[in-house]
């Protein structure tokens, strides 16, 4: 699917009346279109209308919201916003939104080719991509890419994967099944037990709510924990670098580091030993070996095994036919009795001797191999703690002998450590299995899920819907497992492709994605610059937008708003490589360090547009700006051209 944004037109709205055409004279759209709109020109109005034209969401806007789009001091009762899209290079789709300000409603009209429909009705194959879940990813502010990395945005990276690959339909089916069952359950309840049923439903709902809340809380705590750990490592490195500058403690610190590394290796080896010992029950519990040893001794004395086997053979020779179906003649009888002595003696004695040999090393009173390994773990762990304390001690002394910067960093580390410990406790408590003594005041997810399951089963029994519940549960289990499988495969593929792309475009200093969860996680996060971090966000999104020959426009509000000079340059050079159509809404202060690299990277395929509201001040400067007038009305003008774009003073953002 290829969707291009060809332009839009607005009339009678809060933004000036204007028509923006993104098509070039040859009918194609520029790779990058920059639309400079000083504050007060209606940038937010335009972005919201564009989004609503794409996804049809204005049909449900509340009355107040619709009325708020009316031009200030405007007399017109109707407003109009028209967006034009092109699908697969041929089909034009025009979506018209009419704002009825007196009634506070928006009505839609959709024109596809020669067919006009009086509502929001893009063709079904296109509509999937205009769904709000999908289209919201095509309209974002410059911070989204960054949010994807730090996980602080409202949309998680993992959810974006679900959206692009339509995995959310699995959740829809699951939700449908759950809701449908609950409705049936409610209706099927016995008249006599109605009160009990209501009580159970209320209990189930409250348990479900509690369980969901705890799960969300745990996820949020895990994200914070990860952030605090990164922050702790970063400050720790900074502090060490700062302290080592003086050189006074360098040698001491190196020694402590060495001790810590050695203790860490010993701990690893000891754990490995325990892994090897685990399959051997005698090594884990020496008394077992002693008891088996006693048993072997007793058997040896009693010759029980041998006697019972001998009895069997003595009885066998009395039979007319052998166990192998051969007739038992005198030769066979003599042979069996002769060999029995030899074989039984060898086999039984051999087995008992071997067993004795096996348990002998453990059966004495000496220390257990397992116990020794555990002792080694404890010793190595103690050494590790001691080495950590030594390091801490060196740092404390260095800080005492140092400056305010060291003290501040140490304080910050202590504070973060406190936060980490509190979060670790909280996550551990939420994720642990249920234990005796838990009640509904505990924060354990497992506890509430078990109670929820019980409540659901009680409800199913009372309402006579056990069979339907069984089928619904089966369906939900199938969907959950299938989702995990599909999501994991798709995620791995996204990571792989994004990493190849990152190695290509950040050749000199590549960063790599390690995983995608709530956020896009980077390998060695500490080393990524702001520009690299943003590059990862854009690579991730662009990789999805253009996968499998798909192409969608990317509408970005303030692409470099809060970035420093270096990051602006990096991003300016990257965007044209990554996207096929980007429409950026900028203000004058964003041009610096961004526009030139962007122009270079797009090989001139860049459309410069400047949109101004007509007022006393702008009337005077428009002639000086130059540029070609692309569209104009009583209250707005659109100029095309780099000169006009670059000449607009930065002070415009304060004066309009």
């Amino acid at each position: 699917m290829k969707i291009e944004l060809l332009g839009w037109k607005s009339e009678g709205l809060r933004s000036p009346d204007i028509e923006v055409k993104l098509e070039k004279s040859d009918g194609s759209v520029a790779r990058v279109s920059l639309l400079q709109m000083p504050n007060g020109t209606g940038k937010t109005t335009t972005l919201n209308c564009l989004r609503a034209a794409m996804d049809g969401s204005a049909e449900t806007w509340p009355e107040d919201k619709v009325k708020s789009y009316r031009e200030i001091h405007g007399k017109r009762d109707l407003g109009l916003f028209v967006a034009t899209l092109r699908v697969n290079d041929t089909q034009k789709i025009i979506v018209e939104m009419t704002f009825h300000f007196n009634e506070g409603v928006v009505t839609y009209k959709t024109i596809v080719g020669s067919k006009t429909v009086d509502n929001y009705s893009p063709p079904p194959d296109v509509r999937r991509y205009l769904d709000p879940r999908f289209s919201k990813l095509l309209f974002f502010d410059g911070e989204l890419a960054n949010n994807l990395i730090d996980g602080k945005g409202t949309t998680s990276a993992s959810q974006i994967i679900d959206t692009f690959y339509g995995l959310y339909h699995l959740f829809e089916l699951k939700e449908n099944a759950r809701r449908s069952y609950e409705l049936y359950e409610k209706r099927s309840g016995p008249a006599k037990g109605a009160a009990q049923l209501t009580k159970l439903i209320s209990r189930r709902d409250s348990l479900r709510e509690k369980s969901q809340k705890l799960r969300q809380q745990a996820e949020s705590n895990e994200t914070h924990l990860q952030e605090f750990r990164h922050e702790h490592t970063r400050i720790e490195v900074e502090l060490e670098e700062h302290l080592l500058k003086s050189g006074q403690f360098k040698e001491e610190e190196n020694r402590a580091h060495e001790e810590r590394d050695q203790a860490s290796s010993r701990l690893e080896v000891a754990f490995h030993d325990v892994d090897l010992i685990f399959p051997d029950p005698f090594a884990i519990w020496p008394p077992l070996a002693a008891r088996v040893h006693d048993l072997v001794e007793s058997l040896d004395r009693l010759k029980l095994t041998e006697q019972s086997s001998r009895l069997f053979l003595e009885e066998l020779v009395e039979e007319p036919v052998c166990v192998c179906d051969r007739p038992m003649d005198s030769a066979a009888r003599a042979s069996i009795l002769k060999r029995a002595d030899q074989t039984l003696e060898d086999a039984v004695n051999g087995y008992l001797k071997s067993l004795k040999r096996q348990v002998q090393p453990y059966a004495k009173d000496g220390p257990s191999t397992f116990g020794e390994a555990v002792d080694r773990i404890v010793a190595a762990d103690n050494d590790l703690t001691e080495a950590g304390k030594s390091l801490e001690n060196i740092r404390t002394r260095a800080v005492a002998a140092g400056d305010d910067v060291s003290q501040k960093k140490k304080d910050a580390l202590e504070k973060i450590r406190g936060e980490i410990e509190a979060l670790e406790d909280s996550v551990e408590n939420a994720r642990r299995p249920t234990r005796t003594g838990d009640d509904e005041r505990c924060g354990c997810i497992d506890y509430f899920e078990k109670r929820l399951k019980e409540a659901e089963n009680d409800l199913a029994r009372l309402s006579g819907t056990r069979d339907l519940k069984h089928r619904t549960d089966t369906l939900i289990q199938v969907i959950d497992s299938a989702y995990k499988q599909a999501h994991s495969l798709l995620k791995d593929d996204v990571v792989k492709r994004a990493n190849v792309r990152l190695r290509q475009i950040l050749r000199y200093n590549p960063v790599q994605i390690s995983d995608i969860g709530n956020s896009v996680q980077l390998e060695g996060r500490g080393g990524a610059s702001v520009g690299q971090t943003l590059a990862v966000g854009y690579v991730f999104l662009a990789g999805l937008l253009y996968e499998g020959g798909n192409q969608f426009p990317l509408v970005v509000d303030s692409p470099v708003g809060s970035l420093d000079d270096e990051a602006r340059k990096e991003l300016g050079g990257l965007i044209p490589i990554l996207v096929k159509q980007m429409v950026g809404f900028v203000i004058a202060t964003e041009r610096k360090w961004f526009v030139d690299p962007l122009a270079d990277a797009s090989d001139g395929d860049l459309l410069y547009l400047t949109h101004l509201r007509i007022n006393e001040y702008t009337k005077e400067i428009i002639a000086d700006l130059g540029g070609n007038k692309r569209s104009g009305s009583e209250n707005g003008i659109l100029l095309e051209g780099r000169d006009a774009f670059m000449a607009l003073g930065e002070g415009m953002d304060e004066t309009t």
Partner: protein
Amino acid sequence: MPREEVINAIRSEIESRNLPQEAGDRILAFIKQAESSEFPNRDREEQLALILDALPSLEAEQGDSEL
């Protein structure tokens, strides 16, 4: 059409749980129609009922486990 990864995941889950293939087909039919965006609630309910019908009953499962 649902993604190949989704189709394979559903089929493999159905197979590993010894559930009827028909149930998998109906789950995929539901997802396919959900993707088309024209999927009124009534149709959803009908398709859901077909999926649930294709899954083994509690009685059948208990019978199997007793064998």
